[in-house]
């Protein structure tokens, strides 16, 4: 037993060094005013947090991130689940489609975001070209402030869909075949077998998918950064997200204390949502029990 603890020690120490200490340092830093360069670091108490409550950029980022996260998580989950059910059936093309849907997950975000920037281009983008083929007018996907956020949602769903689908697929394949066979013998329809047997048994996977997708969605950054770069891009305010705002305050304006306070709030939001999701799942389990 002692050996186990000793063997774990290097990993735990590394985890503390690269995770816990920086998080703790960020929390401490959120009570200071520091520009990263100056040796002066005056203590400002709760000023950074109070400032955030009146900061229209932070409030806008919070609103945009919430809309983005809930939309992306809801859509990516609702599309991935039926897709997984469909692909779980033994078919010759199943593996091919699984690969196709999973490809965006393993593609690095920067080239993907650049490619989507071209796809969304008003004049030369393939999306507007497709719309023109069916007689629809071109859409200013990135440059219209009312549409830009939804353009990011579409891309976000496309990126995580394959990951969610694979997780659901694993869950579906782990459901004992006897349950479904027994239900079939009892005359249950496909829908009844899914809704009464598969779906309840998939709840732990569903919870995992929702929790991880929510955390990832709240941390959205790279695509926002790429899609707002340059003159032919989305207006910064239309797609301002929390991590992007943290980056701007921390590494463009060098307001590290302020950015740290934002990071602490983001952590608390994600933590709170995770706790809510877990407690909802636990309530369901208790009721089911």
């Amino acid at each position: 037993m002692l050996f186990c603890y000793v063997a774990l020690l290097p990993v735990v120490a590394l985890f503390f060094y690269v995770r816990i200490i920086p998080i703790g340092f960020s929390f401490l830093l959120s009570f200071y005013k520091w520009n990263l360069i100056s040796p002066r670091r005056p203590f400002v108490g709760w000023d950074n947090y109070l400032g955030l409550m009146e900061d229209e950029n932070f409030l806008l980022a919070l609103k945009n991130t919430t809309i983005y996260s809930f939309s992306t998580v809801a859509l990516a989950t609702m599309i991935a689940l039926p897709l997984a059910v469909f692909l779980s059936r033994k078919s010759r093309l199943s593996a091919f489609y699984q690969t196709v849907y999973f490809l965006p997950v393993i593609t690095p975000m920067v080239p993907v975001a650049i490619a989507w920037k071209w796809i969304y281009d008003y004049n030369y983008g393939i999306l507007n070209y497709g719309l023109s083929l069916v007689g629809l007018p071109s859409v200013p996907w990135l440059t219209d402030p009312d549409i830009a956020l939804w353009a990011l949602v579409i891309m976000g769903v496309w990126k995580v869909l394959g990951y969610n689908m694979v997780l659901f697929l694993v869950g579906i394949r782990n459901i004992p075949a006897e349950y479904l066979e027994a239900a079939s013998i009892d005359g249950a329809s496909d829908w009844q077998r899914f809704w009464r047997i598969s779906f309840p048994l998939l709840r732990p996977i569903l919870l995992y998918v929702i929790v991880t997708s929510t955390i990832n969605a709240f941390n959205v950054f790279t695509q926002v950064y790429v899609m707002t770069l340059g003159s032919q891009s989305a207006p910064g305010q239309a797609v301002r997200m929390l991590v992007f705002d943290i980056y701007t305050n921390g590494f463009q304006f060098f307001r590290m204390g302020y950015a740290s306070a934002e990071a602490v709030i983001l952590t608390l939001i994600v933590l709170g949502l995770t706790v809510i999701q877990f407690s909802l799942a636990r309530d369901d389990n208790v009721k089911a029990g």
Partner: protein
Amino acid sequence: MTRMLGRRGAMQAAAGAGVAALAGRGALAADVTLAVWTGYPELVPWYQAMAAEYGKAKGTKVTILSTSLREHEQKLAAAVPTGTGPDIFDVGQILGITFIEAGLVKPNPPAVEALLKGGAYRASSVGQFNTDGKTYGVPMLFSTPAMFWNKAFFKEAGIDGPPKTFQDKMVAAKKLTKFDATGKMTRSGMSLRLSGQGSGIAEKFRFILEPAGGTLIVPNGKGKFHQGYDNEAGRNALKYYVDAVQTDKVDDPKVQHDAAAFVAGNTAMLMREAWVIGEIKEKNPTLDYGVAPIPAWGTGPHKTLLQHNGLWVNAKSKNLDVAYDFQVFLCSKEASVKLTQMSGWVAARSDVDWSPLLKEIPQYKEFVSPDAGVQFYPEPVMAAWNEIESRLADKLPGAYIDPNMLDPAKLAAFIKAAAAQTDQILKQNDLYGL
């Protein structure tokens, strides 16, 4: 006697030590490897060429690290205070002043001070590198915009030459804008900065605001500042943008913009810096274009922005003497000419003979030797400047396309709110004063 011998001995020892030190310094210069970091990848060939020349003369090796400007600034902010930064770096004064305030850049030694104050630079350039009566760093290059205009499009539209005022520019732009049969803009009359994010949007807003008589911040003469655009000039500048997009329809956020649009022939006019010449040379060398001063506002003067990029020696460098020597070498006349020839950026020295360059590319004239009547407005040297511009830039793209801005009262309210935000940032940084 003992005392005499002692003194003589001491003098001999001192002389010996001096020679040894000089010899040692020479040997050290040859052994030294200087690290140079740049935020301008297009300067790398020039740095390499200069490093090779310097190495040939002094034996010093130079390594050059280049990243994008934003990454470069972040790397410097993290590395210089922790003693892991380069010996020399280039960066704008906005960040430079932060390093100065933190004691991470020392006042210039006599040799660098002599270069700076010896008549090689404009007084405005020297002034920008002066903090509390001491000079820090050396201006390496400056960035100043002028107006690029497509000669073929002007000829086709029957317009004689580049507009001299912003009002004429709008009239010309209307003739130069093209639409397809469906009413979709295919060529903008002028390319303004209408979308994206970052301080550049506000910087381009200033291209019109300053000639119109406004300014983002006004010094009060006591080291403090307040906003200077909640006035007629600020409202006129915003109205100009709004009119360009919504009323006169000479530009549209949806069409291609910036240098890419000018190079590709998708816009007729663009206000930009000298590096666009390099872009044209590389991507569309047959483009028939001219470069004119930024238009005036009505009968006002021609005004244009003057931004310096400095060359700084890290106070924590272990090779300070060699670093300062290389800094001076990089700012020599010969190096300055090569900098412009090789990168397209304009070297900051004003005592350079530009005639060979102008003979080859006459469009450089507005950048290297602008007309005497052109007034320069420098970028304020303060750490909060980036935030002031960026926060205004956050608001502007939405306003340019907002139909409410056609209502003068709503436009005035927008400017008032934006200006109040500028004052707020100044207050947060203890820089506000009337």
